[in-house]
């Protein structure tokens, strides 16, 4: 069992007798420190998606399907192709990458976990932390170094992450892929 707060894109959970792939998670805070997790889920059996909300501490049955450690190889529209250690290739639909898609870039070396259901690659789970370069962000307005003032930044691959104001173009930053949160400059 995992709490909604612990789930991340690529996980597969069981709801009402069906497996659902977590495609996107967004955690916010309600009153009294309670976490609210908004998710985009895809029903593996029906190929349908839904947006849903959970309390952060809601417990879900995460199911362990067949998984393989793979690295990203190349993009062949509309499929992302991943390769395992034995050079077998697996196609993953762009739609099934969910939030992870923002971090998939050519030449990436991080090892991902590809999940299979009945022989089909249905999702990709990224490492918990990933390092990407900032390709664009506005300059710091007030020279804040506390890390509390935040601003948006575009990273390699085109995704956007909210970063501390001191982060500059060209900086490499560590991102928590579960929450899409900026962790630190590396």
């Amino acid at each position, binding site marked *: 069992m995992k709490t909604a707060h612990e789930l991340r894109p690529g996980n597969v959970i069981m709801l*009402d007798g069906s497996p659902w792939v977590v495609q996107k998670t967004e955690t916010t805070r309600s*009153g009294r420190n309670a976490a609210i997790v*908004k998710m985009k889920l895809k029903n593996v059996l029906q190929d349908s998606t839904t947006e*849903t909300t*959970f*309390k952060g501490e809601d417990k*879900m049955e995460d199911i362990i399907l067949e998984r393989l450690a793979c690295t990203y190889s190349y993009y062949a529209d509309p499929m992302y192709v991943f390769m395992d250690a034995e050079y077998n290739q697996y196609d993953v639909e762009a739609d099934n990458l969910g939030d992870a898609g923002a971090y998939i870039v050519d030449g990436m070396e991080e090892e991902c976990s590809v999940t299979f259901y009945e022989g089909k690659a249905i999702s990709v789970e990224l490492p918990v932390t990933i390092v990407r370069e900032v390709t664009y962000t506005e300059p710091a307005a007030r020279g804040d170094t506390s890390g509390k003032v935040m601003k948006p930044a575009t990273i390699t691959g085109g995704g956007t992450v909210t970063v501390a104001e001191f982060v500059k173009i060209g900086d490499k930053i560590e991102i928590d892929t579960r929450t899409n949160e900026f962790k630190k400059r590396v």
Partner: protein
Amino acid sequence: MTNETPAASSYKSPHWDIFCVVVDNYGDIGVTWRLAKQLAAEYQIEINLWVDDLNSFSHILPELDKTLSQQQFFGVNIFKWNKPLDIPYRPGSVLIEAFACELPSQVLSTIDELHQESKTNFEQSINTASKPPVWLNLEYLSAEDWVDGCHGLPSMQASGINKHFYFPGFTSKSGGLICESDLFNQRDKWQSSPSNKLALFKKLGLIGIEANDIVISVFSYETLALTALCNYWANIEVQNNSEQTAIHALIPLGKSLASIESLISTPLNKIKAGQQFTVGNLTIHILPMTAQTQFDRLLWSCDFNIVRGEDSFLRAQWAAKPFIWHIYPQEDDYHLVKLQAFVNIYCLNLEDDAANAWSKTNFAFNQQESNVVEHWQQLICAQSALQQHAKHWPIDAKKDADLASRLVEFVKTS
């Protein structure tokens, strides 16, 4: 009483159940009690309100008998929620868990049973009236942007039954704000005659308040900013060396008082409602706890209100008077993000000087800063604009629908 629950569908009735766990004395129960009363009075819905702490509830509903497990006021059935539940749960058409409280296992198993029954009947094409209640989690009020994107979304449970998250809010895409249909008329009528406020102060045992004195209600958490403000109010006359309007701070027993213990030189455990302490230009009146209607009138009658949490925060907005919001503190100062989100929408149509002073006063109060006094002085300079804004704000904020009416519509379409 027994906790046995016979076949779920045989008990189904159109009433609504609201479950409330009292966490912070008056906030959770304040919101749910207002909603329950409004749904019963304006929509003629039979409401069962389940509350786990009748003692706290009795402070805002003094007629409540804390020893009874079932009673009715204002058309609302009030049930004492013991754990485990010792009153049989009869599923109605709507089930509301207030502020994500954990529902009793008996309730969860009953609605699961109804869900399975309804699913089986659907699969076998059997026509049946049995279906689980519309299940809602009534969430906390927030002005943050994400609320619109989460409001109304389903939350599929392991059994397949959907619960919906219902988020109160300030936009047309949110769940709205609790506001009784006749509230603004009643407020305007009350505020049209100054004799009403003086009569109320007298009724509450507050002695020595003249019509032109400045009266400030204080219902906050502990904060050094309140200490600083009270010190400033007490010493205004001395500082200015001129005749000064007297200031009265109306403070109930509880958290706010801890902030001014040093000022009144009396141990907190010796202080009783009805006492008053004069320090320089400031008179501190210890308020008795009052029913919600009386609390609303108190907010309408004061020149300035310092409020906390959610229920009194909203009622202060409806009072059409300037206020400071002492927001419930959260980890990593996240409450300041919530405060900023509200400041952004509240100040949208407020002129710059007033907006700046109001925003800074609120942040200083919440961050326990002693420079709250400087911001307060700026605020007083912008008083006229702030007062005008406070009058217009309730109309802008309520827009065309209050929470109860949006909730009733939401249930109809769920």
